[in-house]
């Protein structure tokens, strides 16, 4: 009974996806609504939640590249986030550099740490890699906590400057922070989309399915896994930098194991290996605690319950396991022609 319902939902979504006109009008409508959200007098906290959702879309999208598409589970993504945040915050405080440059630097430094973590650990498989990333996240937190001369230790960094765009300070009030995060979301989405539709993306998915055979097909599995890890860390760092300049205060407890778990929950919940799932997952999981606020201290019980039910009845995630697009072959290979002749 349940399965049939799910099947119907799947079929419906697939049908709608095929109709280009439906697709474009839905996307267009969503885009317009998103565009006017800060301007229609919604309560401030709602705009803030929308902003947080945007940030988590970037984070889950970055984790999705390695967990959803490549099959490498990381539960230390908050570590990359923290590196991006601290790098960006410290540079802008000490040198007065503009956010757009410090954020890029924060992302690059996080990417470098992705390489440093990836080089020794990506030869590990499955669970071992996951434990290594868990350790990495904690190591980063402890270093930030104890390296007081640089990070100000447990007191954290305060008065981080707001992003400034051509002389305009971006705040929650003028909606600038909201637009900024969603522009970053668009950039992230386009980059990740291009990657997974490329030959590299095809190889990453092959690695997820069967690493041994991927090697035998001539795929450079170790290199590709490291590239994916660097890109993933880069975007996690970018989201971290954004967070630092949005909240204007960071301390070692800003990016903890809970953050990492939240990110991976979104990836699993939304649907591993899908892009739309990251939007849906972030929207639902970030707004759950707010929507359920009337339950007071029981709301995280409900939150947990929803996750358990999800794993039981739809382990592939809400949008998982249905979007399939054909791989692109090298330019000009005409398979239809072969079919006819064969």
């Amino acid at each position, binding site marked *: 009974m349940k399965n049939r319902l799910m099947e119907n939902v799947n079929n419906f979504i697939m049908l709608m996806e095929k109709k280009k006109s439906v697709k474009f009008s839905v996307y267009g409508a969503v885009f317009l609504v998103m565009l006017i959200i800060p301007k229609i007098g919604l309560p401030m906290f709602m705009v803030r939640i929308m902003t947080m959702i945007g940030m988590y879309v970037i984070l889950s999208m970055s984790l999705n590249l390695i967990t959803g598409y490549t099959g490498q589970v990381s539960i230390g993504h908050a570590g990359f986030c923290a590196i991006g945040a601290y790098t960006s915050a410290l540079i802008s405080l000490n040198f007065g550099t503009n956010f757009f440059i410090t954020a890029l630097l924060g992302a690059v430094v996080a990417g470098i740490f992705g390489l440093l973590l990836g080089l020794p650990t990506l030869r590990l498989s499955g669970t071992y890699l996951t434990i290594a990333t868990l350790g990495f996240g904690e190591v980063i937190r402890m270093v930030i906590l104890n390296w007081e001369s640089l990070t100000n230790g447990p007191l954290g960094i305060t008065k981080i400057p707001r992003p400034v765009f051509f002389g305009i300070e971006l705040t929650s009030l003028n909606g600038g922070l909201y637009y900024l995060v969603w522009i970053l979301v668009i950039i992230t989405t386009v980059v990740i989309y291009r990657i997974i539709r490329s*030959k590299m993306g*095809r*190889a990453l*998915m*092959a690695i997820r*399915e*069967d690493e*041994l*055979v*991927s*090697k*035998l*097909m*001539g*795929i*450079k599995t170790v290199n590709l896994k490291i590239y994916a890890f660097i890109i993933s860390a880069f975007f996690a760092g970018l989201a971290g930098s954004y967070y630092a300049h949005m909240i204007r205060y960071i301390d070692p407890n800003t990016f903890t194991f809970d953050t990492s778990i939240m990110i991976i929950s979104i990836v699993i919940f939304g649907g591993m290996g899908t892009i739309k799932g990251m939007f849906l997952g972030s929207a639902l999981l970030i707004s759950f605690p707010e929507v359920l606020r009337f339950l007071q201290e029981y709301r995280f019980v409900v939150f947990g319950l929803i996750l358990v039910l999800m794993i039981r009845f739809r382990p592939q995630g809400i949008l998982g396991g249905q979007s*399939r697009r*054909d*791989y692109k*072959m*090298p*330019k*000009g*290979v*005409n*398979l239809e*022609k*072969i*079919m006819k*002749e*064969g």
Partner: protein
Amino acid sequence: MLKIENLHTYYGNIHALKGINLEVEQGEIVTLIGSNGAGKTTTLGTMTGLLKATEGKVFYEGTDITNRPPYEIVKMGMSLSPEGREVFPQMSVEENLKLGAFIRNDKEGIEESFKRVYDLFPRLLERKKQTASTLSGGEQQMLAIGRSLMTSPKLLLLDEPSLGLSPNLVLLIFDLIKSIKEQGTTVLLVEQNANMALSIADRGYVIETGKVIIKGNAKDMLKDENIKKAYLGSL
């Protein structure tokens, strides 16, 4: 075409290959037979760069390819279809085949390979949109072999293609291996089904506990009383 000299491989502390010597000439089917744990799969793994040799050399068309990474070896034209019908389970038949052509950019060549694979295995053409994990055992084996052919190999290595298939399918698969050879691809066939393997092969090697113990002409080996007793059963 392929020459292996005194090859040694370890799994941790276990000395799996203890000096394998083996040769494959262009245009042959050579079979490597032996019982479980003799080192057949290890030999293939070491040749293709999945495992590291501690001693000895592998030459392919005169080039030393010992311990080169798998992607270089595939590019040189040696492709392994691994044991146990390992297909990409969540991908369609066609996507599996496309991944076989991953390293290639020659447009006509890829089209030709597709045509060749679909000609050899019409079942794959019928099921090109089907998810690989839902194929039957025999079809998955065909897909694994077809995918290896998509790399356009000069030397095809097959690891136990008959494993777990019904007698009829085994006959079919061995027939197809003969056709692959006739199309000009050299085949190194690793098998436990010694009888069948020797009947289509030109030459054979028997290995036991990491060493080649018998080698020779396949037809002679089929008649050899000792081999019959040890590997062919009393048929």
